[in-house]
């Protein structure tokens, strides 16, 4: 609080600072150091300079492919998920009966997401004779080869993420509910239809949470591991071989911890840059209500 001693705040931060110094900083820096070494986990790491990075960025075709898949995955999943979460949130923002039921129903998947049973089930849902294809056939479509076709496999993982849209939705819902209703009324008097209202009023006003969700979802998507690991094992034809899986396999299948660390730090750098770009660009598209006092 403003009237208090300058360093009082640090006192409250002390758990974090201790935790940071003791538990986080060392492993963090260690992994950074390891990215400049050759380390097979059994022997001591030997320093190799930027060799790992050099190889990664010039000679490693798998990395390139994996990176491009990862980027593709992030840039499709995140917008889709945000759009879907927003769409449902907008519907839930109407005064509705059973609202609690719906919110719960839509939120439950986010709780279950980490369970292996779900991943197993996913394999089953999208199997050639699975319920999804049955449903598709039911409405007159051809069944889709979800896991066998490299163009589709990643999509099943995307869908698994989309299915867990609940946490983003709840945040959108909160933001929607905080929008001053009179703005909608003003817009309708200005002659705006539903779509124009959404586009010109709702969207700009929730840009802060769009931004927050964007960052959070992006960070999560870049670290997507469980889906490809359990459901598709990166296949077919490496079409779901996302970078975290690659890092994991480099570290624990090939015992190349130095290289794995290098990939991780490149990924870190990418997320960081994208986050920074997002932060930077947010000045142009995020509208902050902003409070007066500091």
């Amino acid at each position, binding site marked *: 609080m403003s009237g208090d001693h300058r360093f009082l705040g640090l006192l409250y931060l002390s758990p974090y600072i201790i935790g940071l110094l003791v538990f986080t900083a060392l492993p963090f820096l260690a992994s950074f150091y390891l990215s400049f070494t050759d380390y097979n986990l059994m022997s001591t790491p030997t320093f190799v300079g930027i060799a790992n990075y050099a190889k990664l960025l010039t000679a490693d075709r798998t990395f390139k492919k994996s990176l491009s898949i990862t980027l593709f995955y992030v840039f499709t999943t995140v917008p889709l998920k945000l759009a879907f979460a927003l769409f449902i949130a907008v519907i839930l923002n109407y005064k509705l009966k059973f609202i609690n039921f719906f919110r719960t129903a839509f939120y439950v998947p986010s709780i279950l997401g980490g369970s292996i049973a779900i991943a197993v089930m996913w394999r*089953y849902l999208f*199997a050639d004779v699975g319920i999804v294809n049955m449903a598709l056939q039911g409405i007159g479509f051809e069944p889709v080869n979800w896991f066998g076709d*490299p163009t589709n496999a990643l999509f099943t993982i995307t869908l698994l993420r989309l299915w867990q849209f609940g946490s983003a939705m709840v945040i959108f819902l909160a933001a929607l509910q905080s929008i001053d209703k009179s703005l909608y009324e003003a817009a309708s008097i200005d002659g705006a239809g539903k779509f124009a209202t959404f586009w010109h009023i709702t969207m700009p006003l929730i840009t802060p949470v769009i931004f927050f969700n964007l960052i959070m979802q992006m960070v999560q998507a870049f670290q997507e591991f469980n889906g490809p690991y359990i459901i598709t*094992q990166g296949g*077919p*034809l490496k079409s779901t071989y996302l970078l975290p899986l690659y890092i994991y*396999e480099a570290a624990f299948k090939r015992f190349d911890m130095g290289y794995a660390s290098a990939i991780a730090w490149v990924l870190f750098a990418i997320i960081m840059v994208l986050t920074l770009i997002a932060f930077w660009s947010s000045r142009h598209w995020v509208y902050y209500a902003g409070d007066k006092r500091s």
Partner: protein
Amino acid sequence: SNLRMSWWGGDSRHKATQVALKACGDKYGHTIAAEFTGWDGHLEKVTTQIAGGTEADIMQINWPWLPLFSINGDGFADLNQYKDIIDLSQWTKDDLAAGTMNGKLNGLSVSTTGRVFMFNKTALDKAGVAIPKTWDELFAAAKTLKTKVGPEAYPMNAVKETAVLLISLYTTQNTGKDLVDQKAKKVAWSAEELAKGIDFYGKLVKEGVVQTQKSVASEGNLNLFESPKWADGRISGSYEWDSTFSKYADPLKGQKLEPVSILKNTDAKTEGVYRKPSMVFSISKRSKDPKAAAQILNCLLNEPEGINAMGTARGLPASKIAAKTLIDGGKIEPEIVAANAIIMNGTGPTVSPLNEHPEVRAVFIDTLEEYAYGQIKSQEAAEAIIDGVNAVLKKF
């Protein structure tokens, strides 16, 4: 003294091993803490522990991991030093060689396993097909099945690892050589030889002997034994580890699954049996009391307390006395004995653990997948595999 032992496995193995450890511990006055998990993540756990120097005294190590942890033989204790405690004479020379890295005995084979063919006799009988004994008969069986049963009927299954091993088998039969030339640290086959093997796989697919990779994948990457197609006999044969025979037999529910000796053509240079230790027991090089660990190891593998308690939880034991004790005691199902006999009696070159080096496998499977998806020709695939594998082998 106080020891620890770690392994992975399923329920029966967990139960049996705990009993065995208790029995052996009591016998020698040691207490052995059991550390066991499922398969998932076990490698990471062991890796982390070894990297941290905190591994258990006795470890169940997957055979292909040996070169990962101990390419120079110094990753584990050298069991030769405890030959007065462990009766090494119970193992064949091959078994001991398979557990030896750089001249040091790093692991004792717990059981020997290999791939055998197994066919759903009931299903084949229904279609009036005899169990195939050669590749040609297999192709013929496929034709008959298609006409008699339908386009969905396949006499064989081949995906991922199984496809790789089928190709390896065929190529080994043609060349008499294993994939890896361990001395030269390179691939023993020429590109043409491998390409022929890959073409063979292509033919299996084309003639409807096995499903395409794409359609297998579309089922959701299920294990064969989980697949309804296997359970109802639409897929009526496979090429699997002998030790997993029961797992494939169980879902068949009344249909009879038969282990069958290796298919080959008459001009084959060898049967090409793919035989290897399924897993080894190793002792940590950091163990505080390696002698005690060795005592327990010997007890588990060679002494009646351990043998009887462990049973076939890790397949048919490689230790001669253990195998004999169990077979004599009638503790083993006849099919498993039969399947194992096929492996043990089969001929073929010694298999290098590097066959199953994760990167080697990955290169083979990934490239084969590209072939299977029609992205590259067999010749290109063969060259790519050989280049890739050679690159890995160079490191050893």
